[in-house]
């Protein structure tokens, strides 16, 4: 199955292969020394911090693992908290409002386990190949399949970006902020995160914003959830959701799409590369991904618990948009709780807007062969930064158009994400089994089994959605 085109793909530096050879030991070290860029220097600075942390003196030995983890945590936490974006938190909120505490609480945990299986592969792929996902697809599968993948990503990312600005507008709208000001705040956040010209600083700023996804926890506590019911649901997956099967299926799809989407694969792999991670960092990268999935699952369940009072009081939230959830919850969780909920929706939109626009910019730069690193100053990588800002500005502008039918974008964006995942997963699994790329870090049996099960599951759920769309009366729709 594997093979490489000889000669046409080689250069004086040889052809790419999975190796941990340090550049200073390379036969072309002399050539490379004269070709170093700003990006190389910044990445080396980040690597020096990790190396120094690994070799700290005896006095600091106790904290050495923690210091190394602190330095290497980032892409995994960002990708999962970024995926707890505005439409995702609204999907979880709709779930809690419609079905209360029951089946969907452990189901959400399951979706994050699925996400963990997928995202762990991107850590290995990025750390070993030092290539972004789009770049690898173009390299190994050619332009035809590469442009198909990019098409899915571009469409999905742009639609999702629109929903992030809808969330930003809705979240701040609860506080009486005008839409144009809210969108402006969102764009300022995107611009502010990238002005440093350093991946490390961008990552830490975005992580600092992402942790506010935890605002749903105090909102949930203020809803006074039935904790024994939460424990019962986690253990028994009951009570099962009651209602129209088509509606339940749509929420299942939306909740899966709230956790696994193509942009996550492209983003985390590119972020791992930009962060300069190496194969020796894979274990830390796995921890980072696990930490991200765990935090995101907790915050997602908190959103379900926060809106459960709407279910218990028989409030029909089926047509609710972002701020309406907060307003409807105020009688039961108080104005402070409602304000925290609204701020959480705003934060979800901000962090996802930053992460998703960066994902698009990475993919564009990888495909076009232009500079694509947050370690590059704007002047050195203006196509990268233009794509990043341009996509955010276009999405923000659309949200300000009066009477634009944006609610349909919100409804469908998570469903589209699930439907676009199977081909993305196929490329991911093929790449991570490619020994020419991965060397000894190829998937083992269980990793392949998990990946294939996830792909089959997503195809099955998608087909179920398709059948109910073509035959709406089949499930009582």
């Amino acid at each position, binding site marked *: *199955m*594997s*093979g*490489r*085109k000889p000669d*046409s*793909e*080689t*250069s*004086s*530096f*040889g*052809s*790419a292969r999975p*190796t*941990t*050879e*340090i*550049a*200073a030991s*390379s036969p*072309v*070290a002399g*050539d*490379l*020394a004269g*070709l*170093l*860029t700003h990006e*190389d*220097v910044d990445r*080396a600075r980040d*690597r*020096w911090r990790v190396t120094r942390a690994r070799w700290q003196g005896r006095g600091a030995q106790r904290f050495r693992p923690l210091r190394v983890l602190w330095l290497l945590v980032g892409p995994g936490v960002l990708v999962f908290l970024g995926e707890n974006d505005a439409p995702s938190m609204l999907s979880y909120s709709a779930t809690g409002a419609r079905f209360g505490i029951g089946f969907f609480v452990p189901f959400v945990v399951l979706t994050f386990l699925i996400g963990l299986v997928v995202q762990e592969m991107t850590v290995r792929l990025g750390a070993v*190949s*030092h*290539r972004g996902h789009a770049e*690898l697809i173009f*390299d*190994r*599968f*050619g332009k035809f399949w590469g442009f198909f993948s990019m098409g*899915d990503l571009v469409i999905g990312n742009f639609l999702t970006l629109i929903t992030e600005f809808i969330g930003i507008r809705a979240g701040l709208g609860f506080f009486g902020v005008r839409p144009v000001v809210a969108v402006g705040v969102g764009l300022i956040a995107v611009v502010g995160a990238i002005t440093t010209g350093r991946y490390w600083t961008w990552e830490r700023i975005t992580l600092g914003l992402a942790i506010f996804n935890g605002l749903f926890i105090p909102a949930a506590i203020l809803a006074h959830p039935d904790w024994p019911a939460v424990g019962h649901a986690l253990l028994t997956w009951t009570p099962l959701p009651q209602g129209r099967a088509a509606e339940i299926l749509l929420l299942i799809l939306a909740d899966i799409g709230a956790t696994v989407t193509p942009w996550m694969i492209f983003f985390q792999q590119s972020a791992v590369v930009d962060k*300069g991670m190496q194969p020796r960092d894979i274990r830390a990268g796995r921890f980072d991904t696990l930490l991200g999935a765990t935090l995101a699952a907790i915050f997602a369940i908190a959103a379900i618990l926060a809106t459960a009072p709407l279910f218990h009081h028989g409030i029909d939230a089926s047509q609710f948009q972002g701020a309406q959830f907060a307003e409807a919850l105020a009688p039961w969780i108080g104005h402070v709780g409602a304000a925290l909920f609204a701020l959480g929706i705003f934060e979800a939109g901000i962090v996802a807007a930053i992460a998703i626009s960066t994902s698009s910019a990475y993919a564009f730069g990888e495909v076009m*062969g232009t500079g694509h690193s947050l370690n590059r100053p704007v002047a050195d990588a203006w196509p990268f930064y233009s794509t990043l800002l341009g996509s955010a500005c276009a999405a923000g502008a659309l949200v300000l158009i009066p009477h634009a039918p944006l609610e*349909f974008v919100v409804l*469908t964006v998570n469903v*589209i994400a699930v*439907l676009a995942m*199977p*081909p993305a997963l*196929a490329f991911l699994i093929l790449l991570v089994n*490619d020994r*020419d790329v991965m060397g000894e870090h190829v998937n083992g049996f269980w990793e392949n089994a998990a990946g294939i099960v996830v792909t089959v599951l997503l*195809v099955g759920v998608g087909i179920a*959605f*398709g059948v109910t*769309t*073509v035959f*709406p009366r089949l499930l009582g729709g």
Partner: protein
Amino acid sequence: MVLSLLETDQVVAAKQQTRFGRRTLSPGIKILLWGLRVYVVVMFVLVVVSVIRAIHATP
């Protein structure tokens, strides 16, 4: 110092000059990729149908 901290493939100049190269796709993989591509196109059409139905159903 920079070169002693980065792997060869992490250096921008080396990465720009090297490629992993095109892999040979077996007939099975081609069928899989085409099958999934048709699946996505059909599903996107169904999403559009679903949205149009929702628009018409909205008062």
